[in-house]
């Protein structure tokens, strides 16, 4: 599938206490970082490629809502690039012996930008708001499925109760999806929050968010409670932050190179080298954790029900060459069900994804696809080896349509026919909801946790005609893997967790349930004067530490 939004079904982000954000750093041309010490002032204009639709991350289905909301909302805790949980609005916390109660000790000097005090009641109001059916939370509520309630112990102590222990709880609390909003704003119609939210964050937005247009923020001057991950204290450096929605790639790039905006999201890979070569600009990339952009074989029905055909497809296509030629090294070829920056990534499975056409042909012969028809495609009992791949042209990004064409050509070399069917959205969901509807699916799905495996390969996430979109496009149903993933979520021991996730990756690889294509990178292009853009664990940029160098 070629879905444009990095949105997804967020089940509990699992045990990711040791989260690594690898390959995250600046790689501009020439001397970056020689701009001296940070100075306050100025406006940063940032052009982003995707619209949020609804600003409130408590209810929006789009994970980019977390990006739009982050300058306004703080969280109870922060997750650092090394995967450690650090204090933020909560000074400290304790976990009960049974792992089902988290007691947060809150800062007492925090206020919302509308003057309300931040306290234990505010925390309770926020958690209750997220899970309230009226909120219709599409993403946030899914990150805390085990939440049962909150108790105000004293004005600055709050206890959160869970139905079962979950090592994914604190990492979920650290995301903007569970950011703390002013309680008075939560009482009314949740729909009003789609345009405007109020929080304790370093920026405020008086006018709020307008679809297609974007959002402007101004600095909050009395801000003094940054996240434990922040690089400085006190108010943000920028006076003002303007985020504009510019969906057209060439317009976004042109706006940057002609100085109309200071930084842009999602630089097209083909333009990255050109921007790096220009002394006025820099490129910053962050490898997103979670799933890669992958193709998924339908393991339940059709030719791919035979594991040998899946293995043949995996080793018979030169994925490395296709990816390197198309993305110029900006996106790396993927060789695991998970992205390398995910916690508990198992490097040992990588060799299984090597290119070996001889082995592929041998496997196809063994599977009985020995005949050849007039066009050179393999046949078995007179039937051509054809794979149906429904996709949505309207949602294509990152040249995934070109990639699909190249894949089609590469598969033909093996004697496999791929039918790329551009369908409308309703048909697409229908085709993926039954075992017989498709042979190949494709999509990318990021989340800062190896629990992404459960989202992508857990049998509970296989689509049915009643369920709508299902994230397990491989329709992969392996009770052993289900058990590894469930156990990894509830175990408190990081080493045991790593072991369970490694086993899951090995089994999924052995079953050839995924064809990883490329590792998604968030690619920010910026003028040289822009300093200190940081990335949160899910690889969205953040602006609290950002400043503009004098020129």
């Amino acid at each position: 599938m070629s879905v444009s939004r990095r949105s997804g079904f967020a089940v509990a982000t699992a045990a990711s206490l040791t989260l690594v954000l690898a390959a995250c750093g600046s790689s501009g041309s020439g001397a970056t970082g020689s701009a001296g010490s940070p100075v306050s002032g100025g406006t940063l204009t940032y052009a982003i490629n995707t619209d949020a639709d609804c600003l409130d991350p408590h209810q929006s289905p789009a994970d980019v809502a977390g990006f739009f909301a982050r300058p306004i909302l703080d969280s109870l805790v922060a997750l650092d690039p090394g995967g450690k949980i650090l204090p933020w609005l909560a000074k400290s916390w304790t976990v009960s012996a049974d792992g089902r109660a988290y007691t947060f000790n809150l800062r007492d000097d925090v206020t919302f930008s509308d003057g309300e005090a931040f306290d234990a009641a505010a925390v309770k109001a926020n958690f209750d708001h997220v899970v309230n059916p009226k909120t219709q939370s599409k993403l946030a509520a899914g990150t805390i499925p085990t939440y049962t309630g909150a108790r105000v112990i004293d004005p600055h102590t709050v206890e959160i109760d869970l139905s079962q222990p979950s090592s994914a709880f604190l990492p979920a609390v650290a995301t903007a999806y569970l950011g703390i909003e002013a309680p008075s704003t939560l009482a009314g119609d949740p729909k009003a929050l789609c345009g405007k939210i109020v929080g304790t964050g370093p920026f405020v937005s008086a006018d709020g968010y307008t679809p297609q247009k974007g959002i402007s923020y101004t600095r909050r001057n009395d801000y003094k409670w940054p996240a434990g991950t922040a690089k400085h204290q006190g108010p943000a450096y920028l006076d003002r932050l303007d985020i504009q929605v510019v969906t057209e790639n060439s317009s976004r790039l042109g706006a940057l190179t002609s100085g109309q905006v200071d930084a842009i999201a999602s630089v097209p890979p083909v333009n990255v080298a050109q921007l790096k070569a220009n002394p006025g600009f820099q490129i910053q990339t962050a490898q997103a954790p979670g799933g890669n952009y992958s193709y998924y074989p339908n393991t339940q029905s059709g030719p791919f029900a035979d594991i040998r055909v899946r293995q043949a497809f995996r080793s018979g296509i030169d994925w490395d060459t296709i990816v390197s030629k198309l993305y110029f090294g900006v996106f790396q070829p993927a060789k695991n069900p998970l992205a390398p920056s995910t916690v508990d990534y198992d490097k040992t499975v990588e060799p299984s994804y090597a290119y070996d056409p001889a082995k592929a042909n041998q496997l196809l012969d063994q599977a009985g696809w020995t005949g050849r028809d007039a066009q050179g495609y393999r046949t078995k009992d007179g039937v051509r080896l054809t794979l149906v791949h429904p996709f949505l042209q309207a949602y294509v990004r990152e040249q995934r349509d070109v990639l699909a064409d190249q894949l089609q050509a590469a598969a033909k070399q093996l004697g496999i026919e791929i039918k790329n069917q551009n369908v409308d959205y309703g048909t697409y969901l229908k085709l993926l909801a039954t075992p017989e509807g498709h042979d190949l699916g494709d999509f990318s799905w990021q989340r800062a946790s190896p629990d992404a495996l459960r989202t992508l390969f857990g049998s509970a996430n296989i689509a049915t005609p009643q369920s709508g979109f299902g994230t397990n496009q491989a329709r992969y149903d392996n009770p052993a893997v289900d058990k590894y993933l469930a156990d990894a979520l509830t175990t408190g021991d990081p080493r045991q967790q790593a072991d369970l996730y490694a086993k899951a990756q090995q089994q999924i690889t052995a079953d050839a349930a995924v064809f990883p294509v490329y590792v998604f990178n968030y690619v920010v292009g910026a003028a040289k004067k822009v300093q200190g853009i940081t990335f949160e664990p899910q690889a969205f940029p953040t602006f609290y530490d950002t400043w503009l160098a004098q020129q």
Partner: protein
Amino acid sequence: MTTVAPVRVATARRAGSTARAIGRRVLTSVLVLWGAVTLAFLALHLIPGNTVDAVAGGTTQVTPQLRAQITAEYSLDRPLVVQYLQYLGKLVRGDLGDSYALRMPVAKAIGQQLGSTMILLVTATVFAILVSVVIALLTAHRRRWIRGLFSGLEVTGVAVPAFWLGILLLTVFSFQLHWFPAIGSAGIAGLVLPALTLSAAPIGMLTQVLRQGLERVLDEPFVVTARSRGISEAAVRLRHVLRHAVLPVITLAGWLAGTMIGGAVVVEQVFSRQGLGRLTVNAVGHKDMPLVLGIVLIAALFYVLVNIAIDVAYRLIDPRLRSEDTTR
């Protein structure tokens, strides 16, 4: 003095017929709007796909509980006829409903974008009319190479896709020369390139039609008469010929309105302007039923108003139509 009474009677009769004409107009307008909404409603339900998926945000997997709740809240379990009547009932009360994806009232969502689009449409229309009138007046019955040159430009203007033209203009005048901003909806400078892009095709079309009209009229005997009175060529063209030649152009105004609305979708996308065009693209992509229906309604209303304006313009320009009220 003796003629006063009959004139009064005639005026009264004419006023009565005008009132009836207006009444008929309003009635047919309402019918057009109802038809547009009904067709759009049916079309949206014929597109495969489940509305619950649209509300849930497309490619998002949500819990069965949330799906059940969405179904109940939007009455999606009711028969289509009931949903349709419910929608019409709300519509009559002036309630366009809430957008699925934006989660705000449709009226507000459209209101946020309408201004920007109207400014673009009005600017582009005025620009298109001015430019085509000037070019047509200057080139009708002129030397062959002048006509040939402009005809060529006009055909190119119609043939070039707005998308490509927009990117070309952006590259030259924004990215290279820095004369105009590339993105955003703010200010007059930001309006120039989008309006130019949007009006290119209409200018080509209007100029061709207008020039043909002018050339036809320039051959009429009354032009010879006018010239024989010693009036300058400019005055002949402006005062006498243009008025006759402009009628077919006004007929084209309905087509122009359609082209403009369609073109705005592309232009707003290329120039990253906020507006109804981009809102429409997103709404259709999300299968955001209430929003699409709201936009259809606005577009239909726009057409109806433009057509009424065309009728009025006919009457103003062509005195023959004023005395033929009863036939219209």
